[in-house]
């Protein structure tokens, strides 16, 4: 990779003993995503303690251990509600929910749908390797039709999940797709996603060298293209693009600026103090009891 890495990256390199032995397979696309994410955070000038990555379960979800920011490695499929709670409690944090396609689209599917409706200001990064990695190669919701796996020996016959079309259909605030093999472009997309106010969904294509023999690095290069002439504020165009299946468009599909969850809850309307810094209000409790004397 002949790219100039930004300064400030070292801040995000963890020095903890447990973070040194990375559990990803050699050659896995997850390494690239880690690099991209670190560069994006560094270029945005963020500090490690201002960022929190909440991940689910899976190979992708191990990210918090390999990067120096706050992290919570949680449960399969539950990163989004947890991240929503983190952001609600402290809107000053940059909150990222991260996981695989199984994590976010299968086990966590319902949360994703409702997070789009709720629109918390979090960035959802989906490592989409079109297969379950950690559990050794079963089909995921995005596995292509016909692919044979140990648990689908007859070949997958279910329709693959189309996360972009779904998100646009639900009028998500920011929807993008990238391939981790394109470093610079991916850094830009992730930076924009983090900067965008509202829920952002970035589907990041990446090869699983151990279990997905179909969607390889070469395959992604051959079967994707960048959208140069696309207006992300045009929802219908975005939807049409999202329906294209081969080659797969890459870039920012859709942007809809709208109020976030945190902006709309009454708790932050008058008072911007993060919830976690607030103290009980004994005078209001007393007032409540006065009212109950009637």
């Amino acid at each position: 990779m002949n790219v100039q890495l930004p300064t400030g990256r070292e801040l995000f390199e963890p020095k903890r003993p447990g973070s040194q032995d990375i559990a990803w397979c050699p050659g896995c696309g997850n390494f690239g995503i880690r690099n991209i994410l670190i560069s994006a955070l560094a270029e945005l000038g963020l500090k490690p303690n201002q960022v929190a990555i909440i991940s689910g379960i899976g190979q992708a979800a191990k990210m918090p251990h390999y990067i120096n920011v706050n992290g919570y490695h949680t449960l399969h499929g539950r990163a989004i509600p947890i991240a929503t709670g983190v952001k609600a409690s402290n809107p000053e944090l940059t909150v990222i929910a991260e996981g695989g396609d199984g994590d976010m689209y299968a086990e966590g599917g319902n949360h994703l749908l409702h997070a789009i409706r709720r629109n918390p200001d979090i960035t959802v990064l989906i490592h989409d390797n079109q297969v379950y990695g950690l559990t050794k190669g079963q089909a995921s919701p995005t596995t292509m039709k016909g692919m044979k796996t140990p648990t689908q020996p007859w070949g997958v016959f279910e329709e693959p999940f189309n996360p972009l079309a779904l998100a646009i259909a639900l009028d998500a605030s920011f929807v993008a797709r990238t391939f981790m093999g394109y470093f610079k472009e991916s850094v830009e997309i992730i930076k924009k996603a983090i900067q965008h106010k509202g829920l952002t969904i970035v589907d990041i294509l990446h090869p699983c060298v151990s279990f997905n023999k179909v969607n390889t690095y070469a395959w992604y290069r051959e079967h994707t293209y960048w959208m140069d002439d696309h207006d992300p504020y045009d929802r219908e165009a975005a939807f049409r693009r999202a329906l294209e299946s081969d080659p797969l468009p890459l870039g920012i599909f859709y942007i809809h600026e709208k109020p976030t969850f945190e902006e709309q809850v009454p708790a932050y309307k008058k008072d911007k103090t993060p919830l976690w810094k607030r103290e009980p209000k004994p005078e209001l409790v007393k007032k409540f009891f006065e009212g109950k004397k009637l």
Partner: protein
Amino acid sequence: MSEFKEDVSIVLGGAAGQGIQTVEEILTHALKKSGYHVYANKEYMSRVRGGINTTEIRVSSKRVRAFVKRIDILVPFKQGVLSWVRDRLGENTVVLGEKENVEEEFLDKVNLVEVPLTKMVMEVGSQLYLNTTAAGLIVGFFHGDFGAVEEYIRKRFGSKGENVVQKNIEAARKGYELGVKLCEEGTIKIEVERDEKVKDEVLLTGTEAVGIGAFAGGMDFLSFYPMSPSTGVSTFAAQHAEEFGIIVEQVEDEISAINMALGAWYAGARAMVSTSGGGFALMSEAISLAGMAENPVVVHLAQRPGPATGLPTRTMQGDLNLVLYSGHGDFPRIILAPGSLEEAFYLTAEAFNLADKYQVPVIILTDQYFVDTYYNLPAPDMEKVKFERYIVEAKPGYRRYELTEDGISPRAVPGYGEEVVIANGNEHDEWGDITEDAELTIKMQEKRAIKKLETIKKNAPLPKLIGSENAKYLVIAWGSTLHVVEEALEKLGRDDVALLHFSWVYPLKPKVREFFEGKVLIDVENNITGQFAELLRKELGIEVHHKILKYDGRPFSVEEVLEGLKGVIE
């Protein structure tokens, strides 16, 4: 003539949607304002219209806080009510109201005092005012403060316009005047003394006690998915969210509810979820995460009978095992079960300190009977509520899961301090990174499941003993049955019977064993297997000698407990 002294039990019965609740509210408020001790509890069917719902209101010269089976005055608003409460009718029960609402078979069996309620309200203009008339009538029997009735009507119907307020007041007055007249004529005679102090007390429901307790404890965030009978707490929180500056969010399911709350705590806020057994069942995965990640969380679980959807609007103490064993693997938790409204307030507030301090799930167990009960009490004292925060700053070198003697690691939150905070639901090292190291696994398991548990046990409060230390018989109760057992014991009037009530249910201090030594133990529980007795056996090796169990979805009445105790003792 029918005469009632000191303690009158009034039951109103009608269809859902007939406004029984309005009568209940006007009555309890006006009678409390008039200086009477009041208690109310309702019983309702799982439907929005129709069926039969009843409300019991006790009016007394002494403090009353328990459900009695006895009905002194019954006001039926429709046919079928008498059959529904058949086994609660006694020789002295007076049925008050219209003949049409009394089934044929009861006509010559009950003391019917005919009151032409419908005719009276039609004079005011509409059937709609039936409730207010009935409320006025009963307040009239007690020569209550009519000003308080007016005041309440104004508060309740004020938003509907002056005309509605005036009509309701007129309807109530008609009822009130008739009530006074019936007493003067000697049809009904009621002698209940007033207590001036009551006027200044507050009238609270179990729901409100939990809700306001949470606010007192510094709750910042509540996420929920509606489920009876827990929804009231969420509704309460939502209605006060703006005032208190908290977030209340109705989410897609219980799984999301508790995970959001975990996220909120991870980031340093104080969060609670309110649910019932079925919802909690879905939360068990996250309870397990809370255990492993040592993520604090507060759960309010209002029990209803199970399994599955069970009896949605009825009551049972059947979810103790669920909360005790929920989640896989070994990790500590704290289970609280308030017996009184005061306890519900203080314990709910304290639950947030406990969760913060020990970094465990703290579960507050109530039940339908408890959340729907209300009575007057002196306003709880905010000065007695302590706000204890245990969050530390993440200084360089900070380790989220530092191994400590007492099993409690300092908890920092993201953004507070220079260092980062790594929490993890996988087994982890002291920094929070994944480990599969055997020795570290042992240390971490021991830290959570032994050291921390021991620390919690050491600091756990003892149960409350009511009665003599030397009593031969010891009645054991937990949670919502407190007052009903207490009143049954008063009625029993024997000083060789004492009550040991647990509102701190788990984990138990080993010292608790001493209470039981040499006693005949009688366990009273609102479930079929005696789940708490089982817990005592497992935790402390205590075998109860007798069990008084009730599991028809209804709460214990004072009479039932009394009978049960007599059966054991005499």
